[in-house]
């Protein structure tokens, strides 16, 4: 008893110390709904299976079946009765109990005539599901079904509670170790730990799945630490780079997805076996894998995954042989080829693969017209209406060879022999017999050249090297989080501090991008911003008082009036531009299938349902109070977002400015001193080069040399200031250099010109007359006077650097202000866009105003602009 209490306490402590563990996992596709029993989208299971929902049984890595909610089962000798013994004490996330009635409900619901279950046909042989006692269920079959246990391991047959089944599409409720927390459409799905889980408790407190469709953005997100892991990484070309980077761990495996060149047997030339064989001979699988997948992927000769024990390698049936392909085409009566369309869905394997396949088929005289489709179009035209000749698509479901036995399936293959094989397979539980039949199935598909079998899709996963226990290698392609956790920060033994460090490093990893949910953390940041703002206004006030005392209040009021008018017009312009941006932010957030009421509610919640003019004044009023509004996407104050990003952008701008000045001052000075001579001309050429070099290209070159080549610094990303000043500065050094170079060139030229200009002045002549040397004249007399234009340029450059980092931030994947705006534009987060732009305009206008005022103070002749 006592011991039990102690264990519980320890457990509690252990859980407490993990309380803040939160990770973000990147994924390419967003699920359309969150109910795996109602939609075939693989993304649903990828997120929810095993994490939120659980089935009676579970696939092992080799395709065999393990117990899950059913702790054991018996199969009658005739193979017609399956008796499942259920786990006890299991509860759904809403508190309802899991028992035999739930199993009966779930299976009956899936196989009911009105069921929309995508795998419904797999349960067709079930006659009845009987409740024996609360923890025993008997499944009775009409005839034997050798694949029944495998089928029950599918995501489509997870256990659902009668209370929540109808709302699972938007609020999934299961028995798993994580419970659903939030779905931010277009952005992420968040799961939190189920503290009442019946099995082994998980270590992570919160997991966000973030949807990043663009392969380059996926690369950037990993590099910038916006995500801790990426499931099914979509850019194979950069995979080796991550594999070589010690900050990341990678996994290159295989999936159950056969990528095929689907042929529509209903259209004349493709219904001809000889033509299909010719096409198979024309395909060079190696070239396709190299070109479309950068070498990742396993060639296949039939529709079957190579890692399955029953696999037969049939890639030799149709070796790449153009002559043979042409001969077959001629025999079939198409000596001069024919024309077809190739309709491609969006993934890069299809788009890139399509271009290569088209080129290969052209060699044997088949003229291919490529049509790129969106997924919705593809599903409609190709999959549903069979309106296509060829397509390239991956079939992700495990053990899905039976699709070739369906007459109405999209490629329209119909073979009695093949159907007989499938029927025989389903009629036996004998392992050896099943294996033999599976091999016959593969051979039959290859012999009939049903489709162009291209390659088994690779499974590429990348995650933070500190993240342990993340499991990707499984038959269903799900992200298994049951054992995932962050290792303790290496070498940090400061008790509580270490705990906090873990908390931060988990939330922010190496970027500040992901931790927006942490409300209390966010409070401290605007303070820094407010402090900076306060200092600026104090300086402005002092300056204004000086000016007012010297030139009178009216003069100052005029200048301030112009300033305010400029700012007002600027806010109006930005607001109008942003209003014109096409794309409804609410639609973007909620998706196309969104319920109209929900759309209206969100629109109201975001304040988008009022008239634009009213919205403008509301926003303006907020700005005056320092309230930038609330981000549509992140649902947190924009001020906090901006302050967050300024932690990167501000130090970067300052660093770049200092570097630029440090480089420009000596160059400008020497050039002025040696004006007209060789030294000046050489420096002039150098500054010309500096002006001509695009800063982002310089950034790329710096990465190539110092990160990829010499491994001195990382290729990009930002570790956060929590990782230490040195680490932060290290991450900003290369970007600062890239930003500073062109600015330094400008500054050096301005300084040279300004120095030379002052040389005409009387006081210089006086100094010379007194016998001062050239360098002394420049240093003591010319430089102080030349500093005015130089400081103007510096002031203007600062605001440029603050905003101009957009591209550089993209090169180095820094989570700065520029990238915030960029993401906000893509996500239609209008309020963020208009606030950041206005803030930058405000910075530029204010700096210019202050510089102008200090001029006037320094040189009262400037008061009347016409006197200049």
């Amino acid at each position, binding site marked *: 008893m006592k011991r039990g209490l102690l264990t519980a306490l320890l457990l509690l402590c252990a859980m407490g110390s993990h309380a803040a563990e939160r990770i973000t996992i990147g994924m390419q596709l967003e699920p359309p709904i969150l109910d795996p029993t109602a939609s075939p989208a693989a993304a649903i299971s990828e997120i929810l299976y095993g994490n939120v929902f659980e089935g009676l049984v579970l696939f092992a890595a080799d395709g065999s079946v393990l117990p899950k909610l059913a702790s054991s089962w018996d199969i009658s000798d005739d193979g017609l009765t399956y008796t499942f013994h259920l786990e006890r004490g299991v509860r759904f996330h809403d508190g309802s109990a899991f028992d035999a009635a739930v199993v009966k409900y779930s299976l009956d619901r899936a196989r009911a005539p009105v069921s929309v279950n995508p795998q419904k046909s797999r349960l067709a042989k079930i006659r009845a599901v009987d409740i024996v006692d609360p923890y025993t269920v008997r499944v009775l079959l009409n005839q034997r079904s050798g694949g029944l246990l495998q089928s029950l391991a599918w995501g489509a047959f997870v256990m659902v509670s009668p209370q929540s089944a109808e709302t699972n599409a938007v609020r999934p409720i299961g028995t798993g170790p994580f419970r659903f927390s939030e779905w931010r459409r277009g952005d992420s799905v968040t799961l939190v730990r189920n503290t009442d889980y019946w099995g082994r408790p998980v270590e992570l407190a919160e997991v966000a799945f973030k949807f990043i469709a663009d392969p*380059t953005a996926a*690369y950037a997100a990993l590099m910038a630490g916006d995500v801790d892991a990426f499931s099914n990484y979509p*850019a194979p*070309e*950069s995979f*080796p*780079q991550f594999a*070589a980077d010690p900050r990341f761990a990678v996994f290159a495996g295989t999936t159950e997805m056969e990528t095929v060149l689907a042929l529509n047997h209903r259209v004349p030339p493709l219904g001809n076996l000889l033509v299909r064989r010719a096409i198979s001979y024309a395909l060079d699988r190696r*070239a*396709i894998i*190299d*070109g479309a997948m950068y070498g990742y992927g396993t060639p296949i000769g039939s529709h079957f995954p190579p890692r399955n024990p029953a696999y037969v390698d049939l890639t030799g049936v149709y070796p790449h042989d153009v002559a043979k392909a042409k001969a077959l085409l001629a025999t079939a009566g198409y000596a001069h080829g024919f024309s077809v369309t190739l309709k491609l869905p969006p993934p890069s394997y299809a788009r890139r693969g399509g*271009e*290569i396949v088209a*080129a290969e088929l052209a060699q044997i005289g088949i003229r291919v017209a490529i049509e790129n489709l969106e997924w919705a179009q593809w599903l409609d035209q190709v999959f549903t209406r069979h309106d296509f000749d060829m397509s390239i698509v991956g079939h992700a479901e495990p053990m899905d060879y039976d699709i070739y036995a369906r007459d109405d399936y999209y490629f329209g293959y119909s073979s009695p022999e093949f159907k007989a094989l499938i029927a025989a397979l389903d009629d036996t539980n004998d392992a050896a017999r099943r294996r033999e039949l599976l091999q016959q199935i593969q051979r039959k598909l290859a012999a009939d050249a049903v489709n162009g079998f291209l390659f088994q899709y690779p499974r590429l996963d990348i995650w933070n090297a500190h993240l342990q226990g993340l499991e990707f290698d499984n038959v269903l392609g799900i992200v298994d989080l049951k054992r995932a956790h962050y290792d303790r920060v290496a070498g940090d033994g400061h008790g509580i501090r270490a705990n906090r460090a873990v908390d931060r490093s988990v939330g922010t990893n190496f970027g500040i991008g992901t931790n927006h949910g942490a409300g209390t953390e966010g409070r401290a940041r605007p303070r820094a911003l407010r402090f900076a703002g306060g200092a600026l206004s104090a300086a402005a006030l002092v300056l204004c008082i000086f000016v007012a005392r010297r030139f009178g209040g009216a003069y100052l009021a005029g200048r301030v009036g*112009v300033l305010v*008018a*400029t700012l007002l*017009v*600027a806010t109006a312009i930005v607001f109008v531009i942003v209003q*014109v*941006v*096409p794309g409804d932010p609410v639609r973007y957030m909620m998706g196309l299938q969104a319920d109209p009421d929900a759309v209206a509610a969100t629109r109201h919640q975001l304040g988008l349902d009022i008239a634009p003019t009213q919205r403008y004044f509301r926003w303006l009023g907020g700005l005056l109070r320092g309230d930038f509004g609330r981000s549509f996407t992140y649902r947190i104050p924009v001020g906090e977002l901006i302050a967050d990003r300024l932690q990167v952008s501000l130090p970067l701008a300052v660093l770049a400015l200092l570097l630029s000045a440090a480089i420009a001052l000596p160059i400008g000075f020497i050039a002025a001193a040696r004006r*007209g*001579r060789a030294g*000046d*001309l050489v420096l002039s050429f150098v500054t*010309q*080069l500096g*002006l*001509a*070099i*695009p800063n*982002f*290209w310089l950034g*790329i*070159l710096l*990465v*190539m040399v110092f990160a*990829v080549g010499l491994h001195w610094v990382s290729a990009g990303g930002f570790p956060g200031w929590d990782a230490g000043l040195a680490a932060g500065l290290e991450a900003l050094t290369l970007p600062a250099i890239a930003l500073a170079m062109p600015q330094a060139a400008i500054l050096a030229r301005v300084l040279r010109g300004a120095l*030379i200009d002052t040389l005409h002045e009387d006081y210089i002549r006086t100094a010379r007359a007194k016998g001062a040397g050239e360098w002394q004249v420049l240093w003591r007399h010319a430089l102080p006077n030349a500093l005015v234009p130089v400081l103007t340029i510096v002031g203007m450059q600062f*605001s*440029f650097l603050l*905003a*101009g980092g*957009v*591209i550089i931030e*993209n*090169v180095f994947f820094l989570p700065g202000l*520029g990238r915030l*705006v960029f993401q906000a*534009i893509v996500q239609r987060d209008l309020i963020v*866009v208009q606030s*950041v*732009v206005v803030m*930058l*305009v405000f910075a*530029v*206008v204010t700096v*210019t105003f202050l510089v102008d005022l200090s001029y006037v103070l320094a040189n009262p002749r400037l008061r009347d602009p016409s006197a200049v």
Partner: protein
Amino acid sequence: MSVFGTRNGSGTRRAALIVGAGITCSFVGIAMIAEFWTPYDPAVLSIIDRLQAPNLHHWLGTDQLGRDVLSMIMAGAKNSVGVALLSVIIGGFIGVPLGLLAAARRGAIDELIMRGNDLVFAFPSLLLAILITAVFGPGAVNAIIAIGIFNIPVFARVARGGALQLWTRDYTLAARVAGKGSMRISFEHVLPNLVGLLAVQGTIQFSLGVIAEAGLSYVGLGAQPPTPSWGRMLNEAQTLTALAPTLALFPGLAVLLFVLGLNLLGDGLQHRRGRTE
């Protein structure tokens, strides 16, 4: 007296002018040739030939889809020259009349135009260009507009400054005595004398336009595929730096060389003007 008129400076500057004009003309020439001929079709893929290092067949190598990099750079020059030139023309055609108007009328109109100028200058140019391309969609035409807008205040300011000086000259006074209106004088007498000044500014804006276009297409907001553009080539090369470093080299060198040529040309023109006046 010119501060550059000493020693060998003058000769070197003339050489720089010639070199600059040479480079500029070469790039414009390449852009024009690319309209009719490139060594390979920059749109044709050849996977077997992908990621080749520079060799005899492909002087600058091939990219990730086996396209000839030299051909793509030539076609990219077309895009670069086109976008930058058109954005200069937009800026000039709107900005110069505004500047002339401001100088001719002075007073409230001048103040309004110059304040408007300040306003545009106050916007972070790149951010606004991104915003514009986000509003109207990415593409070469919108890149031209986005860059062109920022050329307007530049030309307005330069034209106004130059015109203000010319308005003090005798010939404008004579024209005024002859009863010509201020805008007529602006176009008949002031503008012809500003051509040199505007040409210098145009060259500078041209070079800035080349860099801006590369930047916009680098972030995916410039010309869309399959139109080759230097910026997008750099973007696509970035994840391949470990495999094919030259892919990230040549498009950048093209930008660098072209901009350098334009700057040298602009500088040289400016000094010639300085000498003749």
